[in-house]
């Protein structure tokens, strides 16, 4: 069995025909996973310095030189790296006295931090499959982003206490601003909210749980939802970007809603994280510093939004991006700063960030060309071997080599 690092579900039941060391027919990979597997043969990054192609060793030495010469380096990315590379990355940041951050600082970092710190109850996706009778997808569209979420864990499979199939045994609730593919499946379980209306929805739901009349248009439907959640035996809430952004970093209402639900019955929160090992990075940094992102090791350990990529690009003098493409995801004004910064990009494929980088170092695709370990979106540890040979170095080998040289 092979693994898929196409998303943070890390499917482990993949069957791959290897003909002559090449990927042939695959079974069980979703469309996104299949594209991820196919991608190893196209669009790969080549080693370069200042736009000229060089050997990998030279590229790594140039990267080390950039970092060694910087006063305030930022090491960014990491969701697309193995736990081993993340560990080495934290060590490198410490050695350099630099900052380290990942895309969770502009995504679901706060939710993940509360889960890791124990302020929000959680469980594994296997628990969800075995026990959950209510699955709430909040600002979250796993059908598009994590295509096998519903079939492997959260809605369709049979499990220990869920033997009768989704129609009788499970309920899917989707709270979103648009009728996403996931909402399509939930059908009557879809609650459409206005953009930014998550906070109001939380308030209404809290009122309904307390038996009060919620201040929404369809009071009956909200009361029914409250009753449904009260009666749940094992509820799971899957959070997405949509919720994180709508709440704008103020999770107090959400935390208290989950607290109220937990007083009544069992409810757990599992974030649906993008990159395959975002959870791994957040955990690794938390174990080291007590924070999941935006940390600097300059003058001790400090944490705060001022050390997130969105703010730090104003003051840092070198950026190393590993397995990520912030230039494509961040607002143009911030991407401009990134394009001007002296950047080292380590990645498997060409992207906007590598296009802007002074130094590019190509890496193997973990899970296909290199082994390693990582944490699934629910925190479960997964280990895998490489499947096919590759000329590319693994991410951990690259980081370690650079660290030796600085």
């Amino acid at each position, binding site marked *: 069995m092979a693994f898929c690092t196409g998303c943070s579900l890390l499917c482990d039941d993949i069957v791959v025909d290897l003909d002559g060391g090449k990927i042939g027919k695959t079974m069980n990979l979703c469309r996104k996973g299949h*594209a991820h597997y196919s991608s190893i043969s196209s*669009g790969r990054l080549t080693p370069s310095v200042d736009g000229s192609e060089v050997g990998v060793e030279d590229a790594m030495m140039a990267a080390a030189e950039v970092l060694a010469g910087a006063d305030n380096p930022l090491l960014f990315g990491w969701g697309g790296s193995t736990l081993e590379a993340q560990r080495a990355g934290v060590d490198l940041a410490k050695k350099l006295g630099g900052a380290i951050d990942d895309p969770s600082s*502009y995504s679901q970092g706060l939710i993940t931090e509360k889960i890791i710190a124990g302020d929000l109850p959680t469980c594994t996706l296997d628990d969800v499959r075995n026990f959950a009778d209510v699955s709430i997808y909040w600002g979250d569209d796993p059908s598009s*982003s994590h295509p096998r979420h519903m079939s492997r864990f959260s809605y369709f499979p049979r499990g220990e206490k869920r033997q009768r199939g989704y129609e009788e045994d499970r309920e899917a609730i989707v709270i979103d601003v*648009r009728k996403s593919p996931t909402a399509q499946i939930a059908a009557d379980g879809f609650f459409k909210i206005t953009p930014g209306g998550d906070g109001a929805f939380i308030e209404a739901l809290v009122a309904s749980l307390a038996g009060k009349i919620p201040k929404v248009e369809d009071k009956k439907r909200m009361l029914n939802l409250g009753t449904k959640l009260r009666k749940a035996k094992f509820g799971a809430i899957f959070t997405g970007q949509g919720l994180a952004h709508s709440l704008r970093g103020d999770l107090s209402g959400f935390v208290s809603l989950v607290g109220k639900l937990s007083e009544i019955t069992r409810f757990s929160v599992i974030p649906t994280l993008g990159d395959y090992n975002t959870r791994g990075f957040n955990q690794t940094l938390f174990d080291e510093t007590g924070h999941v992102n935006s940390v600097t090791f300059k003058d001790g350990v400090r944490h705060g939004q001022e050390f997130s990529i969105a703010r730090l690009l104003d003051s840092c003098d070198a950026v190393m991006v590993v397995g990520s*493409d912030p230039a*494509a995801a961040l*607002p*143009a004004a911030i991407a401009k700063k990134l394009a001007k910064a002296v950047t080292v990009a380590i990645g498997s494929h060409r992207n906007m960030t590598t*296009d802007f980088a002074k130094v590019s170092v190509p890496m193997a695709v973990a899970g296909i060309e290199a082994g390693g370990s990582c944490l699934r979106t629910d925190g479960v540890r997964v280990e895998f071997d490489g499947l096919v040979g590759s000329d590319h170095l693994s991410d951990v080998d690259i980081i370690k080599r650079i660290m030796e040289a600085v």
Partner: protein
Amino acid sequence: MAGGKELTVITFRGIFQEVEEARGMYSDGYRDQSAVVALDGGDMKEMGVEAGHPVHLETASGDVVVAAKLSEEAHPGVAFMPASPWSAQLLSGEVGEDGFLELKMFTVRASSGGGRVTSIEEIEAVIRAP
């Protein structure tokens, strides 16, 4: 440009965009999946835009031309756009007082036309420009 219709844009991710991104973001396929805006039918009529035609989107931060798509749902005043380098050109990049960087929701002026759909190379050139 002062004209055009004001719309609230919300970004999302679709599977076919993810698939094209895995294949490489410099492909036509990735652009076709990313450089689009899903509009409400009534809004399209009002703006005189047809499905597949170019729409010019502009904010104080930047502008792009993307292809119009007709939404199956009605959502007047709201438009949906895949999160991509195209939508990123329209974001302000300012961190709010609450310390939050807005990436999902913003207001644009949208109008019919604008010529060809912006290419990723053009976006890179804008970002590189001093």
